[in-house]
Protein backbone atom coordinates (compact mmCIF):
# COMPACT_ATOMS: atom_id res chain seq x y z
CA UNK A 1 0.00 0.00 0.00
CA UNK A 2 1.35 3.43 -0.85
CA UNK A 3 0.23 7.00 -0.42
CA UNK A 4 -1.46 8.60 -3.42
CA UNK A 5 -0.02 12.15 -3.66
CA UNK A 6 -3.12 13.42 -5.46
CA UNK A 7 -5.56 12.57 -2.67
CA UNK A 8 -6.09 14.18 0.71
CA UNK A 9 -5.34 12.18 3.83
CA UNK A 10 -7.60 11.91 6.84
CA UNK A 11 -7.36 10.21 10.18
CA UNK A 12 -9.61 7.14 10.39
CA UNK A 13 -13.00 7.75 12.02
CA UNK A 14 -12.71 4.18 13.38
CA UNK A 15 -9.75 5.20 15.58
CA UNK A 16 -9.17 7.96 18.07
CA UNK A 17 -6.03 10.07 18.44
CA UNK A 18 -5.67 11.71 21.83
CA UNK A 19 -3.20 13.13 24.31
CA UNK A 20 -2.78 11.00 27.45
CA UNK A 21 -1.83 13.13 30.41
CA UNK A 22 -0.83 10.15 32.58
CA UNK A 23 1.55 8.86 29.91
CA UNK A 24 2.63 12.27 28.61
CA UNK A 25 2.10 10.90 25.11
CA UNK A 26 -0.27 10.95 22.20
CA UNK A 27 -1.91 7.58 21.62
CA UNK A 28 -4.13 5.92 19.02
CA UNK A 29 -7.08 4.08 20.52
CA UNK A 30 -9.08 1.37 18.77
CA UNK A 31 -11.01 -1.75 19.78
CA UNK A 32 -8.86 -3.84 22.13
CA UNK A 33 -5.76 -1.80 21.47
CA UNK A 34 -3.64 1.27 21.98
CA UNK A 35 -0.53 2.51 20.16
CA UNK A 36 1.78 4.95 21.91
CA UNK A 37 3.18 7.56 19.54
CA UNK A 38 6.43 9.46 19.60
CA UNK A 39 6.22 13.19 19.06
CA UNK A 40 7.03 13.24 15.36
CA UNK A 41 4.48 10.52 14.51
CA UNK A 42 1.83 12.41 16.45
CA UNK A 43 2.67 15.68 14.65
CA UNK A 44 2.22 13.97 11.28
CA UNK A 45 -1.09 12.36 12.19
CA UNK A 46 -2.53 15.59 13.55
CA UNK A 47 -2.18 17.10 10.07
CA UNK A 48 -4.18 14.24 8.52
CA UNK A 49 -7.44 16.19 8.77
CA UNK A 50 -8.86 15.50 5.33
CA UNK A 51 -7.79 18.86 3.86
CA UNK A 52 -4.08 18.21 3.16
CA UNK A 53 -2.32 16.07 0.58
CA UNK A 54 1.10 14.51 1.16
CA UNK A 55 3.12 17.47 -0.20
CA UNK A 56 1.20 19.90 2.00
CA UNK A 57 1.84 17.81 5.13
CA UNK A 58 5.57 17.68 4.33
CA UNK A 59 5.86 21.41 3.72
CA UNK A 60 3.80 22.30 6.81
CA UNK A 61 6.04 20.17 9.03
CA UNK A 62 9.26 21.41 7.41
CA UNK A 63 8.09 24.93 8.05
CA UNK A 64 6.99 24.20 11.61
CA UNK A 65 10.33 22.63 12.54
CA UNK A 66 12.42 24.96 10.30
CA UNK A 67 14.06 22.10 8.46
CA UNK A 68 14.00 20.32 5.09
CA UNK A 69 14.33 16.82 3.65
CA UNK A 70 11.52 15.27 5.72
CA UNK A 71 9.63 13.87 2.71
CA UNK A 72 11.05 10.34 2.85
CA UNK A 73 10.53 9.87 6.59
CA UNK A 74 7.00 11.27 6.52
CA UNK A 75 6.02 9.18 3.50
CA UNK A 76 7.40 6.02 5.11
CA UNK A 77 5.47 6.65 8.32
CA UNK A 78 2.23 7.43 6.48
CA UNK A 79 2.54 4.18 4.56
CA UNK A 80 2.75 2.32 7.86
CA UNK A 81 -0.23 4.32 9.12
CA UNK A 82 -2.24 3.48 5.99
CA UNK A 83 -1.41 -0.21 6.30
CA UNK A 84 -2.59 -0.18 9.92
CA UNK A 85 -5.81 1.58 9.03
CA UNK A 86 -5.00 4.72 11.08
CA UNK A 87 -5.47 6.99 8.05
CA UNK A 88 -7.57 6.93 4.90
CA UNK A 89 -7.46 8.45 1.42
CA UNK A 90 -10.54 9.05 -0.69
Amino acid sequence: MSINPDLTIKFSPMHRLQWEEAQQKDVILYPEGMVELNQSSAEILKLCDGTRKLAQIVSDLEQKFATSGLANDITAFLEVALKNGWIQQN
Partner: protein
Amino acid sequence: MAGSNKTNITPPRWLLAELTYACPLQCPYCSNPIDYAKHQSELDTEDWKRVLTQARKMGAVQLGFSGGEPLTRKDLTELVKHARDLGYYSNLITSGYGLTEEKIIQLKEAGLDHIQISIQASSQELSDHIAGTASFQHKKEVAHLVKKHGYPMVLCVVIHRENIHQMPEILAMAEELGADYLELANTQYYGWAHANRDLLLPTKEQFEQAEQIAQDFKEKVAGKMKIYYVVPDFYEDRPKACMNGWGTTFLTIAPDGMALPCHSARELPGLDCPNVKDYSIEQIWNESKAFNFFRGYEWMKEPCSSCDEKEKDFGGCRCQAYLLIGDMYAADPVCSKSPNHAVIQEAIDSARASALADNEKPLIFRNSKNSRSLS
Protein backbone atom coordinates in the same frame (compact mmCIF):
# COMPACT_ATOMS: atom_id res chain seq x y z
CA MET B 1 -5.01 -0.74 54.64
CA ALA B 2 -3.30 -4.14 54.75
CA GLY B 3 -0.54 -5.03 52.33
CA SER B 4 2.80 -3.68 51.30
CA ASN B 5 3.53 -0.75 49.06
CA LYS B 6 5.81 -2.05 46.33
CA THR B 7 7.90 0.16 44.13
CA ASN B 8 7.71 0.25 40.33
CA ILE B 9 3.94 -0.12 40.24
CA THR B 10 2.64 0.74 36.78
CA PRO B 11 -0.78 2.43 36.61
CA PRO B 12 -3.89 0.65 35.32
CA ARG B 13 -4.58 1.08 31.59
CA TRP B 14 -7.64 -1.15 31.10
CA LEU B 15 -10.73 -1.00 33.25
CA LEU B 16 -13.38 -3.68 33.00
CA ALA B 17 -16.61 -2.43 34.57
CA GLU B 18 -18.84 -5.42 35.22
CA LEU B 19 -22.03 -3.46 35.76
CA THR B 20 -24.27 -6.41 36.63
CA TYR B 21 -24.44 -10.20 36.78
CA ALA B 22 -28.00 -10.08 35.37
CA CYS B 23 -28.13 -11.59 31.88
CA PRO B 24 -30.89 -12.93 29.63
CA LEU B 25 -28.46 -15.51 28.20
CA GLN B 26 -27.29 -18.72 29.85
CA CYS B 27 -24.01 -19.55 28.07
CA PRO B 28 -22.45 -22.61 29.73
CA TYR B 29 -18.92 -21.08 29.50
CA CYS B 30 -19.81 -17.76 31.13
CA SER B 31 -16.84 -16.07 32.81
CA ASN B 32 -18.92 -14.88 35.76
CA PRO B 33 -18.31 -16.80 38.99
CA ILE B 34 -20.34 -19.96 39.57
CA ASP B 35 -21.79 -18.44 42.75
CA TYR B 36 -22.79 -15.17 41.08
CA ALA B 37 -26.36 -15.51 42.38
CA LYS B 38 -24.99 -14.88 45.88
CA HIS B 39 -23.66 -11.50 44.83
CA GLN B 40 -26.87 -9.66 44.03
CA SER B 41 -25.99 -6.18 45.25
CA GLU B 42 -24.96 -3.65 42.59
CA LEU B 43 -23.08 -0.38 42.81
CA ASP B 44 -25.23 2.66 42.19
CA THR B 45 -24.67 5.29 39.52
CA GLU B 46 -22.65 7.62 41.75
CA ASP B 47 -20.34 4.77 42.85
CA TRP B 48 -19.62 3.91 39.22
CA LYS B 49 -19.00 7.54 38.29
CA ARG B 50 -16.52 7.87 41.14
CA VAL B 51 -14.74 4.65 40.10
CA LEU B 52 -14.47 5.84 36.49
CA THR B 53 -13.16 9.24 37.56
CA GLN B 54 -10.55 7.81 39.95
CA ALA B 55 -9.27 5.16 37.54
CA ARG B 56 -9.06 7.65 34.68
CA LYS B 57 -7.02 10.00 36.84
CA MET B 58 -4.48 7.20 37.38
CA GLY B 59 -4.21 6.60 33.62
CA ALA B 60 -6.84 4.00 32.70
CA VAL B 61 -7.98 4.70 29.14
CA GLN B 62 -9.50 1.54 27.66
CA LEU B 63 -12.86 0.88 29.28
CA GLY B 64 -15.15 -2.13 28.84
CA PHE B 65 -18.74 -1.99 30.04
CA SER B 66 -19.49 -5.62 30.68
CA GLY B 67 -21.58 -7.94 32.83
CA GLY B 68 -23.73 -10.02 32.76
CA GLU B 69 -25.56 -7.96 30.21
CA PRO B 70 -24.71 -4.28 30.72
CA LEU B 71 -27.84 -3.21 28.79
CA THR B 72 -29.91 -4.26 31.79
CA ARG B 73 -28.53 -1.23 33.69
CA LYS B 74 -30.89 1.73 33.39
CA ASP B 75 -28.01 4.19 33.86
CA LEU B 76 -25.82 2.80 31.06
CA THR B 77 -26.14 5.86 28.83
CA GLU B 78 -25.34 8.15 31.75
CA LEU B 79 -22.22 6.14 32.57
CA VAL B 80 -21.14 6.13 28.90
CA LYS B 81 -21.49 9.91 28.81
CA HIS B 82 -19.45 10.28 32.00
CA ALA B 83 -16.75 8.00 30.55
CA ARG B 84 -16.59 10.03 27.33
CA ASP B 85 -16.30 13.30 29.25
CA LEU B 86 -13.33 11.82 31.10
CA GLY B 87 -11.61 10.76 27.85
CA TYR B 88 -12.03 6.99 28.04
CA TYR B 89 -12.17 4.88 24.92
CA SER B 90 -15.22 2.84 25.76
CA ASN B 91 -16.56 -0.47 24.59
CA LEU B 92 -19.95 -2.05 25.19
CA ILE B 93 -19.49 -5.80 25.59
CA THR B 94 -22.95 -7.14 24.94
CA SER B 95 -24.99 -10.14 23.89
CA GLY B 96 -26.94 -7.69 21.73
CA TYR B 97 -30.08 -9.03 23.35
CA GLY B 98 -32.53 -6.17 23.83
CA LEU B 99 -30.38 -3.65 21.92
CA THR B 100 -32.59 -1.42 19.76
CA GLU B 101 -31.68 1.10 17.05
CA GLU B 102 -32.88 3.88 19.33
CA LYS B 103 -30.48 2.74 22.06
CA ILE B 104 -27.61 2.39 19.57
CA ILE B 105 -28.14 6.03 18.51
CA GLN B 106 -28.49 7.22 22.10
CA LEU B 107 -25.23 5.49 23.13
CA LYS B 108 -23.43 6.93 20.10
CA GLU B 109 -24.54 10.42 21.05
CA ALA B 110 -23.40 9.79 24.63
CA GLY B 111 -19.92 8.98 23.27
CA LEU B 112 -19.65 5.19 23.12
CA ASP B 113 -16.70 4.22 20.88
CA HIS B 114 -17.43 0.66 19.90
CA ILE B 115 -19.72 -2.30 20.44
CA GLN B 116 -18.68 -5.90 20.82
CA ILE B 117 -21.44 -8.38 20.07
CA SER B 118 -21.23 -12.03 20.95
CA ILE B 119 -22.74 -14.65 18.69
CA GLN B 120 -22.66 -18.24 19.91
CA ALA B 121 -22.50 -20.13 16.61
CA SER B 122 -23.09 -19.68 12.87
CA SER B 123 -26.47 -21.43 12.79
CA GLN B 124 -29.62 -20.29 14.54
CA GLU B 125 -30.33 -23.67 16.09
CA LEU B 126 -26.92 -24.06 17.72
CA SER B 127 -26.51 -20.40 18.66
CA ASP B 128 -29.90 -20.34 20.41
CA HIS B 129 -29.12 -23.66 22.11
CA ILE B 130 -25.77 -22.45 23.51
CA ALA B 131 -27.21 -19.08 24.54
CA GLY B 132 -30.11 -20.84 26.22
CA THR B 133 -32.31 -18.12 24.71
CA ALA B 134 -33.71 -17.49 21.22
CA SER B 135 -31.46 -14.62 20.19
CA PHE B 136 -29.60 -15.43 16.95
CA GLN B 137 -31.73 -13.47 14.48
CA HIS B 138 -31.84 -10.42 16.70
CA LYS B 139 -28.06 -10.48 17.20
CA LYS B 140 -27.53 -10.44 13.43
CA GLU B 141 -29.90 -7.49 13.06
CA VAL B 142 -28.06 -5.67 15.83
CA ALA B 143 -24.73 -6.31 14.07
CA HIS B 144 -26.11 -4.58 10.95
CA LEU B 145 -27.36 -1.63 13.02
CA VAL B 146 -24.01 -1.23 14.77
CA LYS B 147 -22.34 -0.91 11.36
CA LYS B 148 -25.06 1.38 10.05
CA HIS B 149 -24.40 3.87 12.83
CA GLY B 150 -20.67 4.04 12.22
CA TYR B 151 -19.27 2.09 15.14
CA PRO B 152 -16.31 -0.23 14.63
CA MET B 153 -18.01 -3.62 14.94
CA VAL B 154 -16.36 -6.32 16.96
CA LEU B 155 -17.84 -9.76 16.69
CA CYS B 156 -16.94 -12.22 19.41
CA VAL B 157 -17.44 -15.95 19.07
CA VAL B 158 -16.41 -18.25 21.90
CA ILE B 159 -15.09 -21.50 20.45
CA HIS B 160 -15.60 -24.93 22.01
CA ARG B 161 -16.41 -28.50 21.01
CA GLU B 162 -20.07 -27.77 20.22
CA ASN B 163 -19.28 -25.14 17.56
CA ILE B 164 -15.66 -25.66 16.51
CA HIS B 165 -16.78 -27.62 13.43
CA GLN B 166 -18.54 -24.46 12.24
CA MET B 167 -15.30 -22.47 11.93
CA PRO B 168 -15.65 -21.92 8.12
CA GLU B 169 -19.28 -20.81 8.53
CA ILE B 170 -18.43 -18.58 11.50
CA LEU B 171 -15.78 -16.81 9.41
CA ALA B 172 -18.21 -16.42 6.49
CA MET B 173 -20.79 -14.97 8.87
CA ALA B 174 -18.28 -12.42 10.20
CA GLU B 175 -17.51 -11.38 6.61
CA GLU B 176 -21.18 -11.14 5.68
CA LEU B 177 -21.95 -9.01 8.75
CA GLY B 178 -19.04 -6.69 7.90
CA ALA B 179 -17.19 -7.18 11.20
CA ASP B 180 -14.18 -4.87 11.51
CA TYR B 181 -12.73 -7.09 14.22
CA LEU B 182 -13.39 -10.74 14.90
CA GLU B 183 -12.49 -12.22 18.24
CA LEU B 184 -12.21 -15.99 18.07
CA ALA B 185 -11.97 -16.82 21.72
CA ASN B 186 -11.16 -20.40 22.49
CA THR B 187 -12.91 -21.14 25.76
CA GLN B 188 -10.88 -20.49 28.89
CA TYR B 189 -11.75 -23.11 31.47
CA TYR B 190 -12.74 -21.20 34.59
CA GLY B 191 -16.04 -20.94 36.44
CA TRP B 192 -18.90 -22.26 34.31
CA ALA B 193 -16.58 -23.47 31.57
CA HIS B 194 -14.60 -25.45 34.16
CA ALA B 195 -17.83 -27.11 35.32
CA ASN B 196 -18.66 -27.99 31.69
CA ARG B 197 -15.14 -28.79 30.53
CA ASP B 198 -15.76 -32.41 29.53
CA LEU B 199 -18.42 -31.21 27.12
CA LEU B 200 -16.65 -28.11 25.81
CA LEU B 201 -12.97 -28.96 25.38
CA PRO B 202 -12.25 -29.84 21.73
CA THR B 203 -9.86 -32.60 20.75
CA LYS B 204 -6.38 -31.63 19.58
CA GLU B 205 -7.29 -32.61 16.01
CA GLN B 206 -10.39 -30.41 16.06
CA PHE B 207 -8.44 -27.53 17.48
CA GLU B 208 -5.57 -27.80 14.97
CA GLN B 209 -7.92 -28.02 12.02
CA ALA B 210 -9.95 -25.00 13.17
CA GLU B 211 -6.82 -22.98 13.85
CA GLN B 212 -5.49 -23.64 10.35
CA ILE B 213 -8.79 -22.49 8.82
CA ALA B 214 -8.73 -19.34 10.96
CA GLN B 215 -5.09 -18.56 10.06
CA ASP B 216 -5.78 -18.93 6.32
CA PHE B 217 -8.78 -16.62 6.67
CA LYS B 218 -6.69 -14.08 8.57
CA GLU B 219 -4.37 -13.74 5.58
CA LYS B 220 -7.28 -13.52 3.17
CA VAL B 221 -8.96 -10.62 5.00
CA ALA B 222 -5.77 -8.77 6.03
CA GLY B 223 -6.39 -5.02 5.81
CA LYS B 224 -10.18 -5.46 5.96
CA MET B 225 -10.88 -7.40 9.13
CA LYS B 226 -8.62 -7.80 12.11
CA ILE B 227 -8.69 -11.17 13.84
CA TYR B 228 -7.96 -11.61 17.52
CA TYR B 229 -7.33 -15.28 18.12
CA VAL B 230 -7.37 -16.31 21.77
CA VAL B 231 -5.40 -19.55 22.04
CA PRO B 232 -6.69 -22.52 24.00
CA ASP B 233 -3.86 -22.86 26.47
CA PHE B 234 -4.53 -26.56 27.15
CA TYR B 235 -2.84 -27.29 23.82
CA GLU B 236 0.20 -25.08 24.44
CA ASP B 237 3.56 -25.93 26.08
CA ARG B 238 3.85 -22.60 27.83
CA PRO B 239 1.24 -20.69 29.82
CA LYS B 240 -0.34 -17.42 28.77
CA ALA B 241 1.10 -14.19 30.19
CA CYS B 242 -2.06 -13.84 32.22
CA MET B 243 -3.38 -10.27 32.55
CA ASN B 244 0.00 -9.05 31.21
CA GLY B 245 1.25 -9.67 34.76
CA TRP B 246 -0.75 -9.34 37.99
CA GLY B 247 -1.63 -5.77 38.93
CA THR B 248 0.29 -4.22 36.03
CA THR B 249 -2.36 -3.26 33.50
CA PHE B 250 -5.86 -4.59 34.17
CA LEU B 251 -8.43 -3.65 36.77
CA THR B 252 -11.81 -5.34 37.02
CA ILE B 253 -14.63 -4.00 39.16
CA ALA B 254 -17.34 -6.58 39.89
CA PRO B 255 -21.03 -5.59 40.09
CA ASP B 256 -20.94 -5.40 43.90
CA GLY B 257 -17.87 -3.14 43.88
CA MET B 258 -15.21 -5.73 44.54
CA ALA B 259 -11.95 -4.75 42.83
CA LEU B 260 -10.24 -7.70 41.15
CA PRO B 261 -6.80 -8.07 39.52
CA CYS B 262 -8.51 -10.44 37.06
CA HIS B 263 -12.16 -11.37 36.70
CA SER B 264 -11.64 -14.83 38.26
CA ALA B 265 -9.62 -13.63 41.26
CA ARG B 266 -12.66 -13.76 43.52
CA GLU B 267 -12.19 -17.55 43.58
CA LEU B 268 -8.67 -17.41 45.07
CA PRO B 269 -8.47 -17.94 48.86
CA GLY B 270 -7.20 -15.32 51.29
CA LEU B 271 -6.83 -12.41 48.88
CA ASP B 272 -9.30 -10.16 50.72
CA CYS B 273 -10.14 -8.29 47.54
CA PRO B 274 -11.05 -4.71 48.47
CA ASN B 275 -14.30 -2.97 47.64
CA VAL B 276 -14.57 0.42 45.94
CA LYS B 277 -17.13 1.42 48.56
CA ASP B 278 -14.35 1.29 51.19
CA TYR B 279 -11.26 2.50 49.35
CA SER B 280 -10.24 4.73 46.46
CA ILE B 281 -8.94 3.14 43.24
CA GLU B 282 -5.52 4.58 44.00
CA GLN B 283 -5.44 2.93 47.44
CA ILE B 284 -6.71 -0.33 45.96
CA TRP B 285 -4.23 -0.38 43.10
CA ASN B 286 -1.16 0.72 45.03
CA GLU B 287 -1.65 -0.49 48.58
CA SER B 288 -4.10 -3.39 48.80
CA LYS B 289 -2.98 -6.88 49.72
CA ALA B 290 -4.85 -8.35 46.75
CA PHE B 291 -3.23 -6.21 44.06
CA ASN B 292 0.26 -6.68 45.53
CA PHE B 293 -0.16 -10.41 46.11
CA PHE B 294 1.39 -11.66 42.86
CA ARG B 295 3.19 -8.51 41.75
CA GLY B 296 6.82 -9.08 40.84
CA TYR B 297 8.50 -12.48 41.19
CA GLU B 298 9.11 -13.02 44.92
CA TRP B 299 6.00 -15.16 45.39
CA MET B 300 7.13 -17.74 42.84
CA LYS B 301 8.08 -21.33 43.56
CA GLU B 302 10.22 -23.65 41.46
CA PRO B 303 10.25 -24.25 38.55
CA CYS B 304 9.13 -20.62 38.01
CA SER B 305 11.51 -18.77 40.34
CA SER B 306 14.66 -19.85 38.47
CA CYS B 307 13.01 -20.01 35.03
CA ASP B 308 14.49 -17.82 32.31
CA GLU B 309 10.99 -17.29 30.85
CA LYS B 310 9.37 -15.93 34.01
CA GLU B 311 9.48 -12.35 32.75
CA LYS B 312 7.66 -13.46 29.62
CA ASP B 313 4.71 -15.35 31.11
CA PHE B 314 4.84 -14.50 34.85
CA GLY B 315 4.31 -18.18 35.71
CA GLY B 316 0.99 -18.20 33.86
CA CYS B 317 -2.42 -17.92 35.45
CA ARG B 318 -2.84 -18.00 39.23
CA CYS B 319 -6.51 -18.93 39.01
CA GLN B 320 -5.71 -21.87 36.73
CA ALA B 321 -3.00 -23.15 39.11
CA TYR B 322 -5.46 -22.95 41.99
CA LEU B 323 -8.36 -24.45 40.08
CA LEU B 324 -6.43 -27.41 38.65
CA ILE B 325 -3.95 -28.30 41.40
CA GLY B 326 -5.19 -26.39 44.43
CA ASP B 327 -2.03 -24.28 44.81
CA MET B 328 -2.19 -20.67 43.62
CA TYR B 329 1.59 -20.23 44.03
CA ALA B 330 2.45 -23.12 41.72
CA ALA B 331 3.43 -22.88 38.07
CA ASP B 332 0.42 -22.85 35.76
CA PRO B 333 0.09 -26.59 34.97
CA VAL B 334 -0.22 -25.74 31.27
CA CYS B 335 3.57 -25.29 31.34
CA SER B 336 5.41 -28.45 30.34
CA LYS B 337 7.98 -27.64 33.05
CA SER B 338 5.30 -27.92 35.75
CA PRO B 339 5.53 -31.10 37.87
CA ASN B 340 1.71 -31.13 37.64
CA HIS B 341 1.54 -30.87 33.85
CA ALA B 342 -0.13 -34.32 33.67
CA VAL B 343 -3.44 -32.83 34.89
CA ILE B 344 -3.79 -31.12 31.51
CA GLN B 345 -3.51 -34.39 29.58
CA GLU B 346 -5.94 -35.97 32.06
CA ALA B 347 -8.44 -33.20 31.32
CA ILE B 348 -7.99 -33.68 27.58
CA ASP B 349 -8.43 -37.46 27.91
CA SER B 350 -11.49 -37.05 30.10
CA ALA B 351 -13.12 -34.71 27.57
CA ARG B 352 -12.36 -37.12 24.73
CA ALA B 353 -13.90 -40.01 26.67
CA SER B 354 -16.97 -37.89 27.29
CA ALA B 355 -17.26 -37.02 23.59
CA LEU B 356 -17.13 -40.71 22.66
CA ALA B 357 -19.56 -41.83 25.37
CA ASP B 358 -23.03 -42.98 24.30
CA ASN B 359 -24.94 -40.91 26.81
CA GLU B 360 -22.99 -37.73 27.44
CA LYS B 361 -24.25 -35.74 30.42
CA PRO B 362 -26.01 -32.44 29.56
CA LEU B 363 -24.44 -28.98 29.69
CA ILE B 364 -24.96 -26.99 32.88
CA PHE B 365 -26.39 -23.67 31.75
CA ARG B 366 -25.52 -20.46 33.54
CA ASN B 367 -28.59 -19.34 35.41
CA SER B 368 -29.52 -18.42 38.96
CA LYS B 369 -31.04 -21.81 39.73
CA ASN B 370 -27.84 -23.65 38.75
CA SER B 371 -25.72 -21.00 40.46
CA ARG B 372 -27.50 -21.59 43.74
CA SER B 373 -27.40 -25.38 43.50
CA LEU B 374 -23.65 -25.42 42.67
CA SER B 375 -22.52 -23.01 45.38
